[in-house]
């Protein structure tokens, strides 16, 4: 198996703080990989690095056989790595359609207006947003904006999709819809890396799970392997109870 995305010994330091410490990771084409770990473990930093927001302090990142560490985010996007943000980032004054047209125009090859519009509409239909195409992005509900993020990513024809807490703040019904959407995206052959706090989502969706703790990778494997890994249990033990409580509280609130 050749990896479509691989991180080799990647370290990211901010001043004195090491956010990621010598992480190596291979992701095969078509995989759905979950990235978990306590707050501050470095998950979002990892996504930011892969998508070109930061340049790694040391180490290399390879995508589809090509070094991408140090490339600008737009270059990485054009190669076929899409991402969503934990906090959604639409273009608030544009319509939903224009929002989705932007990646179609800029990342997915040099498309003219009509082709870009076609592609955008297709992505909107896929995400069930076609009815809201002429709405302003700022008028969408949170769930709608999350789906807009996904539609924007899809319109780029990505090979790899990095999803950063795409379910945060959604209610269970909306989560189910989102899960279905992610599965359908995966079924199109898109490789997915998903950061998630809700274990039920991760267990459900992922073929493989990577655990980060204090910036280091402490375990990886199938969901079953990871949950029984003594390192993971140890890492989580200190605050596991609190996390569990928090998770329940959240679900309670959502329900």
């Amino acid at each position, binding site marked *: 198996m050749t990896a479509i995305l691989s991180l080799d010994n990647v370290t990211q330091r901010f001043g004195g703080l090491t956010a990621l410490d010598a992480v190596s990771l291979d992701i095969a084409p078509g995989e759905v990989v979950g990235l978990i770990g306590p707050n501050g473990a470095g998950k979002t930093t990892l996504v930011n690095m892969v*998508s*070109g*927001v930061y340049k790694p302090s040391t180490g290399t990142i390879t995508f589809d056989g090509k070094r991408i560490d140090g490339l*600008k*985010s*737009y*270059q990485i*996007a*054009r190669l076929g790595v*899409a*991402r969503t*943000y934990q906090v959604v*980032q*639409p*273009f*608030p*004054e*544009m*319509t939903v359609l*224009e929002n989705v*047209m*932007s*990646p179609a*125009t*800029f*990342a*997915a090859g040099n498309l003219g207006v009509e082709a870009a519009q076609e592609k955008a509409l297709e992505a909107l239909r896929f995400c069930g947003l076609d009815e809201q195409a*002429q709405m302003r992005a700022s008028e969408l509900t949170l769930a709608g904006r999350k789906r807009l993020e996904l539609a*924007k990513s899809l319109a*780029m024809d990505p090979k790899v999709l990095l999803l950063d807490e795409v379910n945060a703040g959604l209610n269970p019904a909306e989560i189910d819809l989102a899960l279905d959407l992610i599965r359908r995206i995966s079924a199109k052959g898109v490789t997915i890396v998903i950061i998630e706090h809700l274990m039920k989502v991760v267990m459900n969706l992922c073929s493989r799970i990577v655990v980060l703790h204090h910036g280091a990778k402490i375990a990886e494997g199938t969901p079953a392997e990871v949950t029984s890994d003594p390192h993971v249990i140890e890492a989580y033990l200190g605050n596991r109870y609190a996390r569990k409580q928090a998770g329940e509280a959240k679900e309670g609130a959502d329900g």
Partner: protein
Amino acid sequence: MTRVLPVVLVIALVAALPLLGDNYLLRLGTMGAMYAVMALSWNVIGGFAGYPSFATAAFFGLGAYTGAILQGAGVYMPLAWVAACLAAALFAGLLGLAILHLKGHYFAIASLVVAEVLLEITTSWTSLTGGGMGLNLPILRISVDAQARLFFWAMLALASLTLAMNWIVANHRLGFGLRCIRQNEDASGMVGINTTLYKVIAFILSAVFVGGAGALYASWVFYIEPPDVFATLTSVKPIVMALLGGAGTVLGPVIGAVLFLVMEELVWRNLLEIHAAALGILIVILIFFLPGGVLGLFKRRRKPAAPSRPLASAEAGR
């Protein structure tokens, strides 16, 4: 095309202004065209891309001095104008690479201070620029009426070019990309926009015709001195004009420039010493009561080209 035709007709009508045979009106027309060039140019970086640029005076002064120095060295006048455009564009490109990574106030101040630095350099580089003594340009050997017509038409042509440039940008992926950058620069990178390149292009476009206007202006008035061409107000007025008409739209800056000229002239004629205050009041009214500019009053419902809150732009600059 149905929207382009009326504009072309209006330009053609304005071009017939010399028929009235009133040189003062021609002078006002020339100034109006110059204002339009500056407002439209600022619109690209400030209106479309949302970067609060105060560099217009720097480009204007640089163009004026480039044109004046070249003409003084015997370069044919129109060539000197073109060279001034290129000089301003080149300068904007380099400057943009240096300061466009700054956000908000930091960018505003950096762009504002550039004109100050150029002013000081121009003043102290006496051997090239005449320093504080100013610089005289060769007098044109044609009749004064012919001069008035020549500079009016030249400035009008430049304004038309700038308008066309705005129209093309607005309808091109560049304009789309710039509007994305204005609304969310980080997300713009993620959808594949080369933000640095786009911003630099926008900055260059905001400079090139202003440089030309500076050179034209220098030829027009025969004599330039540093404080006149590098005046801070030269940077501020185009912003007020663009906001007045509707920033981020194509026609807004033109409308704003004409309205501004009319108001400025009326105030200047009728109030002896308080036109600065009048401009101040205009600004305050604009900010509180006309945040979308004149076009904003009409365009509430229209969807694509004109965002109805053109002021919303660059993120807070912390």
